[in-house]
């Protein structure tokens, strides 16, 4: 079964770089994600939206990747926000006590409106 793989799709909407993640984010691929976010922020992206709507689950390694990127974005005066945190994924954020650790919008549309 190959639905374990994490898929990352980057697109652009106005000034925002949208990173849509799907599949499972765990310790086998979280470092790839850290590298990816690091590259985006280092390259000067000032507005990054991570869409978690198609993520099946994420583990603490994934939360670490998101926290590391949030910190790096802050240091670079970039906005790093999440959207579409629902179902199992929302429960995992809740369990980790991490719902307040990020800026989270309900949907991609809502996030893009807020990011302007």
């Amino acid at each position, binding site marked *: 079964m190959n639905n374990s793989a994490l898929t990352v799709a980057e697109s652009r909407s106005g000034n925002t770089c949208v990173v849509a993640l799907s599949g499972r984010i765990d310790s086998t691929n979280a470092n790839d994600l850290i590298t990816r976010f690091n590259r985006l922020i280092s390259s000067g992206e000032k507005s990054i939206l991570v869409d978690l709507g198609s993520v099946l689950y994420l583990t*603490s390694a994934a939360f670490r990747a998101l*926290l590391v990127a949030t*910190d790096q974005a802050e240091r670079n005066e970039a906005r790093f926000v999440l959207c579409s945190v629902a179902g199992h994924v929302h429960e995992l954020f809740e369990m980790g006590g991490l719902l307040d650790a990020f800026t989270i919008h309900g949907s991609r549309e809502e996030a893009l409106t807020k990011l302007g």
Partner: protein
Amino acid sequence: MPSPQQKSVHLSLRNDVAELTLVTGALNRIGEEIDIPAKALIQLQVALDEVLSNIVKYAWPPTEAHVFQVQISVRAGGMEVVILDDGVPFDPRMQSPPKPVAPDVRPRPGGVGIHMVKQLVDSFEYTRINGRNQVILTKQYSKQQWP
């Protein structure tokens, strides 16, 4: 003949984080065969990722190649995973919980994982036996559970 509701899989894994995909794959297959509710399966997989990645990272010096054992058993509405490694003695339950943080301070990732494992599974046991660490995780499920 084992009934279709019973299943047991044994995996020998190298201390390389990439090997954890074998556990994910095995659980996915078992989950499909036995029709385990997605929520229970996901919760066990998230818990296992934390426990197994800690073994890979900390049980042995990173330059040494080692193998550890994972036994997954499913029967009568419950999953049990037994993990055996011959690394340094380490009780994964003893990791300190995440420190409470002020509302304007972002939590640090450290400790979040084990805190989550305790909520995700029904039991989380550790024993040091015959020079090996043994961790047993169990997760119950019922067919009536939200899918």
